């Protein structure tokens, strides 16, 4: 239709043009009908070509519009899908989070173990010793098997305990015994101040409170602290501890005390181990300790008991004074300790002053991450103590000087193998049994 209209319009225009020709172009010769027909046919072709182009453009525009609409639809669809995917991803993340928390909670609760499981911890240590005595029988002994049981009642009240089996077997006619070395309630009143009530280790010396085998050199605990202090020494009572940010700690204790019970002056025999202990005389102790520089500990303690022999008529007081320094920098460490008892009253004059000291330099290397550390040490000990057998047939002052060297090997922090050699030629304590030297081997652990 459109085409016919255009053709009709062109024919009319051509007719009008031809009608005006005589007036305007009179002098010129008019084209013939045949020429006119040719011109019309030529124009007709141009019109048809133009018409085809227009139609092609219109089709192209229409196609483009359709494609654009399709693209818009697809984009909207993709956007919707992306939105859905994001929502699903968020949901998945939340599910993963919830699952992870659930799994972690199951892990923490150890498959619904009771509440005490989370607040109770156990630990322990043990050590096997082999003593090769030059001049006497050799010996092997699983000296200590210890378990710690600790419990947090709440965020400021805790129980600490230590149960020990000594020498493998306990019972009648056996060498060993079961001992409750610690069982106290700790209350953290402030960040600086806490109290311990119960059975606790007295704050004297280095080893008395810290004596896990991987924390010291030498297979056996050193004799100065063993016979003079005497470690390990625990009593029942109350202890208060106050500490400052500068590294100062003050400890004060009031507790049950010793009862030498006729063993006049033999300090080590006076430990009652809080076992139906005579409790007529309290022991008062105090310690000041400085640890304000990393690697350094300097401490001094005093302990006083008005009558060390509570069970008999003999009446004599005891004052224990100790001081020590422990310093570690890099692999090098040094420990030195001095301790003395001053007894006053109904006591043999040889027993009135008993003292001892030792100095122990050491060096520790890290072999490798896998194979652990190796340490060597030397120790000189000089101590005098009064020894009385229960029967009182033996009563004498032992003067001892021991020269000692040894090696510790820690394959990991909590396991140690030990070897040491002690020259006991100048030690009465060993000479009475004819022992000139001792080689000790040991293995210890803590967990």
């Amino acid at each position, binding site marked *: 239709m459109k085409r016919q209209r255009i053709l009709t319009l062109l024919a009319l225009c051509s007719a009008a043009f031809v009608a005006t020709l005589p007036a305007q172009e009179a002098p010129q010769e008019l084209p013939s009908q045949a020429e006119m027909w040719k011109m019309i046919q030529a124009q007709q072709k141009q019109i048809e070509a133009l018409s085809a182009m227009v139609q092609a453009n219109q089709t192209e525009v229409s196609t483009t519009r359709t494609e654009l609409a399709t693209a818009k639809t697809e984009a909207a669809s993709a956007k919707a899908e992306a939105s859905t995917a994001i929502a699903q991803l968020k949901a998945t993340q939340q599910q993963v989070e919830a699952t*992870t928390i659930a*799994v*972690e909670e199951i*892990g923490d609760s150890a498959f619904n173990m009771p509440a005490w499981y989370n607040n109770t*911890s*156990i*630990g322990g240590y043990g050590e096997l010793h082999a003593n090769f005595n030059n001049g006497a029988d050799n010996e092997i002994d699983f000296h200590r098997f210890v378990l*710690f049981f*600790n419990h*947090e009642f*709440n*965020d*400021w009240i*805790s129980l*600490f305990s230590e149960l020990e089996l000594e020498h493998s077997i306990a019972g009648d006619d056996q060498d060993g015994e079961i001992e409750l070395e610690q069982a106290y309630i*700790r209350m*953290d*009143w*402030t*960040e600086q*101040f806490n*109290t311990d009530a119960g059975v606790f280790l007295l704050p004297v010396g*280095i080893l008395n*409170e*810290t004596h*896990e085998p*991987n*924390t010291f050199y030498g297979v056996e605990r050193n004799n100065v602290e063993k016979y003079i202090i005497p470690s390990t020494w625990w009593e029942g*009572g*109350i202890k*208060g501890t106050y*500490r400052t*940010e500068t*590294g100062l700690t003050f400890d004060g204790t*009031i507790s*049950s005390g010793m009862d030498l019970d006729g063993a006049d002056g033999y300090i080590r025999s006076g430990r009652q181990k809080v076992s139906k202990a005579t*409790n*007529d*005389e*309290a022991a*008062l102790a105090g310690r000041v300790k400085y*640890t*304000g*520089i*990393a*690697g350094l*500990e300097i401490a001094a303690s005093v302990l006083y008991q*008005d009558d060390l022999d509570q069970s008999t008529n003999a009446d004599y007081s005891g004052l224990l004074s100790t001081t020590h320094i*422990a310093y*570690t*920098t*890099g*692999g090098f460490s040094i420990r030195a300790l001095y301790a003395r008892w001053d007894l006053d009253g109904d006591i043999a004059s040889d027993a009135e002053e008993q003292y001892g000291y030792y100095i122990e330099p050491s060096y520790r290397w*890290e072999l*490798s*991450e896998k194979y652990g550390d190796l340490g060597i040490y030397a120790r000189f000990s000089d101590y005098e103590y009064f020894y009385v057998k229960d029967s009182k047939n033996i009563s004498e002052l032992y003067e001892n000087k021991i020269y000692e060297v040894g090696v510790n090997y820690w394959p*990991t*922090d*909590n396991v140690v193998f030990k070897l040491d050699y002690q020259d006991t030629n100048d030690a009465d304590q060993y000479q009475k049994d004819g022992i000139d030297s001792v080689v000790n081997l040991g293995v210890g652990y*803590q967990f």
Partner: protein
Amino acid sequence: MHPRLTTPLLALVLWLQFGSSMHAIEDVYLEPETFIAQSFESEPERKVLWLTKDLKASIKQVLGRDYRGMRIRYWQQGERTAWILEEIGKVKLITTGFVIEGDAMHSMQVLIYRESHGWEVRYPFFTDQFKGLELGEKNRLNKKIDGISGATLSVNALTRLSKLALHLHKEATAQ
């Protein structure tokens, strides 16, 4: 109980009653949230490091044992990360915060300490040693940490944790 023991005991108890402030306090020295807030100038991005098989294997090499759990949370702002990790000292967990920047330890703080001994590990005279620590070849620290007498195991635990924090920082920032 004998009067000679009873009297001083009573005195001590009375002193505790009236001499101390009598308010219970948690053994939390610094709340973890506070530690994180103090460790960054503005709000850090909270992230999670998933413990893949490979990462667990490398952690075992650093720590000497397996690390429990499926992931470890951490906080990051730029090159600085903060981690809150736990390890047993003697028998109880020590909760510790580490801030690491550019592969070196920026600071370390003991947040919760539960052991009976070794409280010194939470004070600056000990924790300052950890500043500038870096993890070198074979998982060795670039300097030795001096210990606290009576708290050897706690010091060892904190040293191990500092290695772990440095290792995790490397892993997290490499991702």
